[in-house]
């Protein structure tokens, strides 16, 4: 299970970053979608071919070509000379990184490259926060999947396989951003990732501080996904009952809600409920590795229960 907050993709509004040169020239246009923003940025700024972008997003090349030319039409006739909404740019880069965790074209590396350029140009704290967040997550990538493709939860990862260079750089970037005292959601999320990276073993994780940072993320974003992740952290810091209480009032149809509920019930010593909830959560998963992981969790608990009975 991934504990680090992912913010729900929202339609990107009205402003477009066009080039990393100058100070983020942006365009005020009509509403357009994250998919088209992502595609256009990868094509125009990232320099990827349409075929590569199509392969990365598993759509036919003709579809991606249309998406890109629609995005171009949307921004055509707009003058790119005003300083724009950097937040939109960061959101798009965040989307690219998040979706780029697998696939033939390494979109995660591409997102890091672009964010690094942006940090060099703007000295913006949140851009630095996003770069730190990406570096710290990227550092864990070699340990996130087993050779057979199955997911390895954070607590079970071989921390020796984390990339320490990326962690050092990520922590460095984050610390200098935090020192400027203009906190935003990416810095707060990066702080959580840094606290995980900082623990030599899962047991040494500073969950109390992680909960405090989740409080910040919730305050800054008011995102239900952040609340869900916070509940997991509360479960580790103050015990599963407290975690379950923190889930109270959250929409049960949130992605991963049932999986988190299962996890907390297992920690609370109720394997029967946990097994049922894991089995319920599996077909609701958003990816095949996640579905298989949850099925395996249910199977593990049921096997234990049979052994006991």
């Amino acid at each position, binding site marked *: 299970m991934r504990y680090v907050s992912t913010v729900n993709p929202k339609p990107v509004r009205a402003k477009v970053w066009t080039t990393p040169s100058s100070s983020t020239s942006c365009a005020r246009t009509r509403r357009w979608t994250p998919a088209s923003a992502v595609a256009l940025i990868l094509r125009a700024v990232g320099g990827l071919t349409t075929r590569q972008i199509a392969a990365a997003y598993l759509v036919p090349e003709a579809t991606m070509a249309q998406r890109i030319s629609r995005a171009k039409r949307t921004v055509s006739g707009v003058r790119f000379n005003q300083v724009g909404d950097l937040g939109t740019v960061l959101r798009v880069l965040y989307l690219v990184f998040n979706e780029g965790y697998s696939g033939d074209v390494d979109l995660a590396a591409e997102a890091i490259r672009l964010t690094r350029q942006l940090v060099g140009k703007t000295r913006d704290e949140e851009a630095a926060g996003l770069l730190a967040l990406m570096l710290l997550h990227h550092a864990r990538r070699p340990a996130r999947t087993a050779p*057979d493709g199955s997911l390895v939860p954070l607590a079970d990862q071989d921390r020796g396989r984390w990339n320490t260079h990326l962690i050092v750089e990520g922590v460095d970037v984050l610390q200098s951003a935090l020192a400027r005292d203009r906190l935003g959601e990416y810095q707060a999320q990066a702080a959580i990732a840094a606290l995980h990276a900082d623990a030599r073993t899962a047991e040494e994780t500073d969950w109390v501080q992680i909960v405090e940072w989740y409080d910040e993320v919730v305050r800054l974003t008011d995102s239900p996904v952040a609340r869900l992740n916070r509940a997991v952290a509360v479960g580790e810091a103050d015990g599963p009952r407290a975690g379950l209480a923190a889930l109270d009032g959250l929409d049960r149809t949130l992605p991963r809600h049932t999986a988190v509920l299962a996890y907390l019930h297992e920690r609370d010593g109720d394997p029967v409920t946990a097994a049922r909830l*894991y089995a319920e959560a599996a077909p609701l998963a958003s990816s095949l590795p996640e579905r298989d992981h949850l099925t395996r969790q249910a*199977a593990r608990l049921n096997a234990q229960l049979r052994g006991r009975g």
Partner: protein
Amino acid sequence: MAKYLLLKHYRGAPAAVNDVPMDQWTPEEVSAHVKYMRDFADRLQESGEFVDSQALSAEGTFVRSDGEGRPPVTDGPFAETKDVIAGWMVIDTDTYERALELAGELSAAPGAGGRPIHEWLELRPFMGASHTITE
């Protein structure tokens, strides 16, 4: 070559021979099953018969138009819906017999106790383009 859709159901297909819900298997049996499915797709890729494979979430909603200017009407998800598709594989084979053979192989993926599930898969031929020369 002709394309076929292999449909796998969460619910709605006749009962498998080795019919034990997946969460009642051991974790090792789950892993063996996942590996079998992946190896199967890899083999078809090598033989040039693989087209696509996707898994579906169990959630689903029925949607229909409610007329111009109105938002679409939705219904569901239905907890009791009889037929729920779990996913599909599209294959491209020389003959119908080869498609049957592959479907049989996929159906024999290992399940509880490491024994083949022998689950029912639905095999549906694609409608192709009309042939230029028909005789």
